[in-house]
């Protein structure tokens, strides 16, 4: 994958999604927008990344249904302050579970935004930039 020529690393993001296609889209879109990325393949890896003492992402993007640890469970541990990362870090849930109950559960878990698949990467980026105040 070619690296974007206009990349300036001033922002960072943690992505946790078990779907390779989604990861590739997010990686390309966010790295093109100048994000330094930590990419995780499941919820437990996401938990480890967010529990790193140096973890200070500007934004976290989580899938809901992941092996080993669900995105909503991971988000709850973040919001309860159980991990090293700032409990108030902006979090976007990205999932194929789009019923009203699912969206409400995601938002009640503490998500700042909830996007359902299929999704528009441009819309996602706009929401990311709004959340981190770019």
């Amino acid at each position, binding site marked *: *994958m*070619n690296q*974007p020529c206009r990349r300036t690393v001033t922002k960072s993001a943690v992505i946790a999604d078990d*779907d390779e*296609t*989604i990861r*590739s*889209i997010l990686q*390309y*879109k966010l790295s*093109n927008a100048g994000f330094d990325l930590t990419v995780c393949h499941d919820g437990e890896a996401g938990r480890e990344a967010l529990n790193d003492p140096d973890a200070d992402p500007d934004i976290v993007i989580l899938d809901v249904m992941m092996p080993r640890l669900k995105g909503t469970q991971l988000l*709850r541990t973040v*919001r*309860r*302050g*159980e991990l090293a990362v700032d*409990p108030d870090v902006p979090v976007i849930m990205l999932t194929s579970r789009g019923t009203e109950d699912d969206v409400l559960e995601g938002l*009640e*878990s*503490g998500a700042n935004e909830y996007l359902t*698949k*299929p*999704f*528009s*990467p*441009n*819309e996602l980026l706009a929401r990311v930039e709004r959340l981190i105040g770019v």
Partner: protein
Amino acid sequence: MTVIADPSSATTAVAIPPVALTAAVVVLAASLAAVVIVTLGYSLRADRRRRRRTPIRADLRSALLDRLYGRDEPAWDEWVATLSTTERDELESLLDVYLRELRGRDADSLAELGVALGIDERARRDIADGGYWERIHALVWLALLRDAPDRSLLETHCRETPRERAAAARVLYAAETTDLATTGIELLLEAEPRSFSVFGIDTLYRVSETDPAPLFERAAADFETWEPALQQQVLLVTRHLHTVVGGADLSWVIGALSNPEPRVRSAAWRALDAYGWNRGLRADIGAGSDRIADEPAPSVRASAYRALGAWGDTEAVTALRAAAGSEPDDRARVALARALFPHWDPDGPAPGRWDPDGPAPGRENAVGSDGDAVDPFDAAWRWTSEHARFDRLARNISGARTREVTRR
């Protein structure tokens, strides 16, 4: 073969010659060996093919994303012209995956790649000339490309089974055509299927969500002739539609409240969840009268309580409160308590306690752990209250954090 029959016995013994037995064993063993060899052969071939294609796929993925996000113009046609047959085949597979995950401008751009690969034309040919599975496959591609073909093509070739009709309706939904609701309902309910598959129900919902009028018109005309399973499914879809139609003829839903099948009556009550605002409809239902009390099935009464809870106005709450004094079934009582709970002061007394007529049928026999008589509705109310309290606690993330910080 020698058959030895004993005239005095009803049973017959058959003696098989050893040569025939040996031949049968040899044939069986040879067949088994052939199956093993063919399976192994296919597995090895598939593995070799996968190994050969993995690096090709990785390169194509990178190039695809680079063209999609890294350039002003993806120039799909030029790129596709440089690809080998294997690469095109693999690119189609990748395109299939990405089109399912993306929408908006990126999906539109990828659909142009599909056109550059000639998928749209091939799909139309397959619909016109292909067999059943080719047509289904072609419809899936057209849905992914958001490309609706001529209606005559769909109407002539895609009506063989409910699955195929649903797939055709799905193409119209994906392409957001203006005739989605009318043509979609026509395709889906043509020949009145006994019931829909999960895919069919989902498609019926999607087709009706933007404009429920054609579904309601069709149901008003034909509901009585449908199988109970189909009636239940249409009512389920009606319940979940967010688009409420003001002047729609919903007499068929009210009629379904008297259907001989309890599951249809139950679904009819839930279909009315979104129509509490419709006073005329409410008057026709007569929810405050004896309709619910006279309902013999507890599951249907439970659905009626849920509908009243969804309406949530004074009249509905009064009806629920009245029912709290007389509901004899445990599960229906819990449903009633849950329906009433959001409309009641959680710290106040249980509504059933204000029943002026004393113990009602089914309310005098329950006994608590300490041996005292327990009002059955009171028990349901306390359970609901406890459940709601724990639910609030579990969802109160910021409160949990505050408690944690205080403890530290």
